C-alpha cells in the first residue's frame, strides 16, 4: 500500500468546519453532508473540508487532540510506555499532514504541533524498529503490536513479512537437519545403553 492510498483512507475521517456560505445537504454514496449554514459548525469528511478550504469557503476547526498540551501528554506517555499507546486518531499523521498543508493559519501554534506530531511518529517508529530487531534476534514465534496506525505499518510493510518468510524457511531447513542429527544421536545413545545393559548382564 502506498502512502497515497493511506492518505485516501485517512481522508474519510470526519472533521469540523465553519462554512461561510449557505447550501443544501449534498447526498453522496457514503452518506449525506450538510446542510451548510454560514457561521454554524458542521462535520464533514476531510477530503471535502480540504477542498472547501482551498476555495476559501470555510474555516477548519482543528480536532480536539490537535492541541499542544494534549499532544505533549501523549508524547510523554509514548516515551514512558514500553508498548504502543493508543493514538487519538487512527490516521493522525495523514490528518495533520493534510490540515497543515491547506489550513495552517486555522490552527493555533501550528508549528509547535507539527513538531510534536513528528516527534511522536519518530518515537513510535524507533520503538517499532527496536522491537522488530529484538523479535528477530530473540527467535520469538509471534509478536503483538497493538495500536499501530496504517502509516506506521507501511514503514515496514513489504520488507519485514518477506524477510520473516525467508528466515522461517531457513529455520525449517535448520531444524530438519538438526532433527536428523538428534535422531542419530538418539540411536547411538540407545546402542550404548543396550551395550551397557548387556555388559551388566
Amino acid at each position, binding site marked *: 500500500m502506498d502512502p497515497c492510498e493511506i492518505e485516501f483512507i485517512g481522508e474519510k475521517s470526519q472533521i469540523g468546519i465553519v462554512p461561510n456560505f449557505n447550501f443544501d445537504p449534498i447526498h453522496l454514496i457514503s452518506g449525506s453532508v450538510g446542510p451548510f449554514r454560514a457561521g454554524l459548525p458542521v462535520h464533514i469528511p476531510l477530503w471535502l473540508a480540504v477542498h472547501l478550504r482551498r476555495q476559501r469557503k470555510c474555516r477548519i476547526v482543528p480536532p480536539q487532540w490537535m492541541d499542544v498540551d494534549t499532544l505533549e501528554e501523549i508524547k510523554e506517555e509514548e516515551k514512558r510506555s514500553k508498548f504502543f499507546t493508543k493514538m487519538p486518531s487512527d490516521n493522525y499523521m495523514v490528518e495533520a499532514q493534510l490540515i497543515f*498543508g491547506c489550513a495552517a493559519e486555522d490552527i493555533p501554534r501550528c508549528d509547535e504541533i507539527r513538531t510534536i506530531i513528528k516527534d511522536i511518529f519518530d518515537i513510535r517508529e524507533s520503538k517499532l524498529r527496536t522491537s522488530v530487531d529484538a523479535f*528477530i*534476534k530473540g527467535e520469538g514465534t509471534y509478536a503483538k503490536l497493538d495500536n499501530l496506525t496504517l*502509516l506506521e505499518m*507501511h*514503514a515496514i510493510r*513489504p520488507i*519485514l*513479512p518477506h524477510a520473516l518468510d*525467508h528466515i522461517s524457511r531457513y529455520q525449517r531447513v535448520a531444524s530438519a537437519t538438526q532433527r536428523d542429527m538428534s535422531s542419530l544421536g538418539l540411536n547411538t545413545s540407545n546402542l550404548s545403553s543396550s551395550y551397557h545393559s548387556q555388559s551388566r548382564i
Partner: protein
Amino acid sequence: MGSRSYFPSYYSVDDIFVTQEKISCQVSSRLLKMGFLDPGCETDHLEPGKIVKLPLWYVKELKINNPYLIIQIPELYKNVHNAICEAESTNIDLGKMNMQYYEYGRYLASFDRNHSLGRILYETCRQRVRHLLTISKNTVDEIKSENKMDSIERGLYEAGIRTNTLYTNWLQQKNSKIRPSELVQEHSKKRKRFTLSDDEMSSSLQSTKRSM
C-alpha cells in the same frame, strides 16, 4: 520480486538458476555406460573414485546414503567460510561468493554430513536481515552496486528502499496524484499486447490469403 514474497516453485526462474549449479560428486560404485557424464573419461563406464560434476536439479533428488554417488559440499559452505559467518556475517560479500547463497545452501543442507549448514544459513540470514532492515531504512538514493548481497537480500533491500522513498515523497508532497496499482497496470499492458498480437495475426493471415 514483486509484491509477493519469493517462494521457490517449479516455474520460478530464480529456482531454475539455482538448480543449474554444478556440484561435484564422487562415484562410489561402478556405473555402467555412464562415462559420457565425465568429458575427460575415456572408458564407457564410470569407475569408483571418479569425480563428476552434476547439476543440482538431479542431485537434489538423490538420497544422502544412495549407493552410487557421494555428494561433496562446495568449498563455499566449508569450515573457513562458516567461521567467518559465525563471527561477523554482516561484513561478508555474499554476492561474490554466490548470487544465490541461501537457496543453494538450502538444497545442499540435507547432504551436509556435519549437520551444521542449515543452522549456519539460518543464523546468517537472521543477522544479515537485521542489518538489512537498518540500512534500507537509512538510504533513499539509488542502490549502489558494491553492496554485498545475494539475490534474495537484494530483493528485500530494494523493497525497503522503495517504501522509504515513497514515504519521504509523500511527506514532501512530491506526488499528489494517485496512480493505478501495479496489478492494474500489468493487466492493461497485457491487454494491449493481446490486441496487438491479434492485429498482427489477422494481417499475416490476409497476406497469406493474398499470396494464395
